């Protein structure tokens, strides 16, 4: 009894959706669905805030008067092992989120610069893995045969690898060089198969759909079919995969910096700050809490957004 009306509802919704746009998941409807969820609104606000923080880091340094590398000896107590003077890790009008123990660097400014590093690395890695993953996944799924065999085996190989251990080994062995670029490369090498596998599966389904048959019958070349007919239908999947990949890379970058193989000091990075803060948790918990909170909020917001996006798009696909 109850299933029949719901199916009908879905159908009527789908019918209503069809005339508004050619694509199966109209962006407007997805956005409307997302806007109804307070969790998504909050997440987007947080992401925007952190992105602004990253972009405006130099401005923040000018406003507070402290650069990311400036020491402030007057803010720490040399006789007590260098702990920040004042409550809550030295929070004051001078240093809005307190200072780092041992050197007195301003935490707010370093968190802002750290956001710059984290977001740049995570977004670049996402861009690279998405490009690689989508192209290779589509080639494997669409053409099948030898291309599929080769790409699938490479993916199996990379996915079977103990990724974190290998990243640590690789990054320790490589010369210091340009760390952020190295991080993006290493993250991308191990990240693309996860995208490619999903894309390959979806492509294989789409390959046999009617509109592809139609395109093929009308004489379109395979490349054109892949990129003009199949790719637009993967749009939703790609957006969801990308949104969910970003927090993964932010977390991995922080983890690698925590382990001392990521971004090199003195470049500020959240993972590194948390790593340094571990020893200080008992006397200066704020030093741990502040970068930790920023890291948590960023990862959490991207994950919530990605999840909701997937739900919204899935609902569209079901139609």
């Amino acid at each position, binding site marked *: 009894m109850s299933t029949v009306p719901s199916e009908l509802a879905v159908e009527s919704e789908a019918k209503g959706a069809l005339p508004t746009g050619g694509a199966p998941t109209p962006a407007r409807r997805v956005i409307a669905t997302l806007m109804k969820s307070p969790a998504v609104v909050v997440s987007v606000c947080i992401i925007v805030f952190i992105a602004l923080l990253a972009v405006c880091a130099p401005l923040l340094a000018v406003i507070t008067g402290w650069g990311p590398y400036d*020491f402030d000896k007057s803010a720490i107590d040399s006789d*007590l*092992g*260098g702990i920040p003077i004042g409550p809550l890790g030295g929070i004051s009008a001078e240093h809005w989120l307190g200072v780092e123990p041992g050197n007195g660097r301003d935490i707010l400014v370093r968190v802002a610069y750290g956001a710059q590093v984290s977001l740049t690395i995570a977004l670049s890695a996402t861009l690279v893995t998405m490009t690689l993953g989508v192209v290779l996944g589509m080639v494997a799924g669409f053409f099948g045969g030898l291309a599929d065999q080769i790409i699938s085996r490479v993916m199996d190989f990379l996915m079977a690898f103990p990724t974190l251990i290998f990243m640590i080994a690789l990054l320790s062995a490589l010369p210091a060089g340009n760390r952020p670029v190295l991080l993006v490369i290493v993250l991308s090498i191990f990240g693309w198969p996860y995208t490619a596998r999903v894309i390959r599966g979806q492509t294989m389904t789409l390959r046999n759909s009617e509109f592809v048959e139609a395109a093929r019958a009308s004489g379109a070349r395979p490349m054109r079919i892949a990129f003009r007919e199949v790719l637009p239908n993967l749009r939703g999947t790609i957006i969801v995969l990308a949104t969910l990949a970003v927090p993964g890379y932010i977390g991995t970058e922080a983890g690698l910096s925590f382990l001392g193989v990521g971004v090199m*000091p003195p470049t500020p990075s959240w993972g590194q700050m948390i*790593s340094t803060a*571990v*020893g200080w948790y*008992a006397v200066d918990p704020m030093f741990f809490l502040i970068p930790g909170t920023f890291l948590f909020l960023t990862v959490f917001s991207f994950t919530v957004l990605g999840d909701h996006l997937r739900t919204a798009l899935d609902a569209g696909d079901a139609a």
Partner: protein
Amino acid sequence: MKQRTALLALTLAGSLALAGCSPASDAPDSGGDGIGGTPTAGGTLRVLQNADFSHLDPAQGFDGGVNNFYRLIYRTLTTQGTGEGAEGTEIVPDLATDLGTHNDDATEWTFTLKDDIFFEDGTPITSADVKFGVERALDPSISIGSPYAKIVLDIPEGYEGFYSSGPLDSIETPDEKTIVFHLNQPYADFAAVVAQAPFTPFPADAGVTTTSVDQQPIASGPYRVTEYQRGSTLVLERNEHWSKESDDVRGAYPDSYEWSFGLDGATIDERMIAGQGDDRNAIAGSVQAASIARIQTPEIQERTIQGLQGCTTYMPMNTTKPGMDNPLVRQAINLAVDKQAVKDGTGGSQLADIATTMMPPTVAGFTEFDLYPSDDFAGDPEAAKDLLTEAGYPDGFSFVLDIRNNPKMQAQAEAIQQSLAKAGITVEFNLIDSSTFYEVIGTTSQQHDAAITGWCPDWASGATFLPPIFEGTQIYEKGNSNVAQLNDPAVNARIAEIRAMTDVDEANAAWGELDEQIMELAPAVPLLFEKAVMVVGSNIAGAYAHAGFSGGIDYVSVGLADPEK
């Protein structure tokens, strides 16, 4: 070579778990008893330690921590004294009856052994055993410890230790109690050389091999190893054949010692601060900077020991690199470094004093001076800029600093980087993994423009401090300790002159003056004299920091106040 390991104890594991020493002024009470009065014999003393000892074989281990440990199981002809400050670094007789007698030019040294000295199996220690111990230690496969036997004994070309080349003619044993050493140079301080660990005796006829000692040591001291799991635990129990009457140095109060290795530094601090259960009978190495604020309560202060490690943390500058070959540049860097910031990064005033000289105050002949002064040691970027302009770098200068991948060193490096930036000097870091750090900076083809490292004297004399790190003849392609690669004719000549002095006091004073002469050339920036701050258990007695062992708690003097607890 040698200091690579000594340094390991000092900086890498700065808090290894056995550091900390106390100048006489910090003495909690008189009599050299250290904290908690004189111990009572008996009980089990526990040691919480981060890293295991490098080697149980005295031919191989060579750092403050392991040398301290060796005194529990091994004896040498002479050894360092007990007590805080200079009392502890004084050389006193151990197996020998006195500090040896020598011929006129100090090239031939004779020692007589005491009576009633035995190995752990009850066989008496004879002069042949001492001779065998040295010959064994000269085997190239194990001679990675203290190098002084190799340096001063008259060893024929191509001699490769007892197992390959047989007995060594330059050590004579006219009878069971007498041993005579022939040296290749006059050496007034030879009594300190025979206190080095490779002079430990081993039974000449008991089937000892190159590797057996590291597995199963043969004790000549008050304790023997009864259980050893590498990286995990080490248990010592009394050697019944050792007699207190034959030994003026060792208190040897506890019945047994038990080491726990592989503990995290923060965990050790946590346990020592709490001091519950068996940890009341425990000692450990220096606390971490983050724990300093937590040990300020009167209850914990009562069981805290503090003191200099007797080492210098410094930044040698590679004088062969372009730019760094100009003394003006090196002087400018000396002027610009904010040593106060370096100190704060290391843990503040409780964990470090600022160094303006290369030799630490614990070394005999130490002379205080500051050739590159600034207000509050905060650096003088303006004066540095002037010098740089004069040197031909009006637009600044940049160099690469080799540092170890560890938080304390990074904090020091960041402080240096930040202070030099104010003088227009750009510092780039080359982060090196801790395990290979000394190998890299000790290889002339791999080191960069500067490094942050440390140096501890092998005994409290300038002779074991300045020459290894600044003598031109001691620059080696690998295992180099003269990281600055300073090869200054005047300095080299002066070192040779001081070496030839037969009066030890005169030589010590001369080393102090040489320190200043070297600093005028500015081959290095002396940064800190790091200190150790150690919290001991509430039932610990007789604990004090020994200046001869990187400031570690002297193992042979510590014990329990009440073994029944």
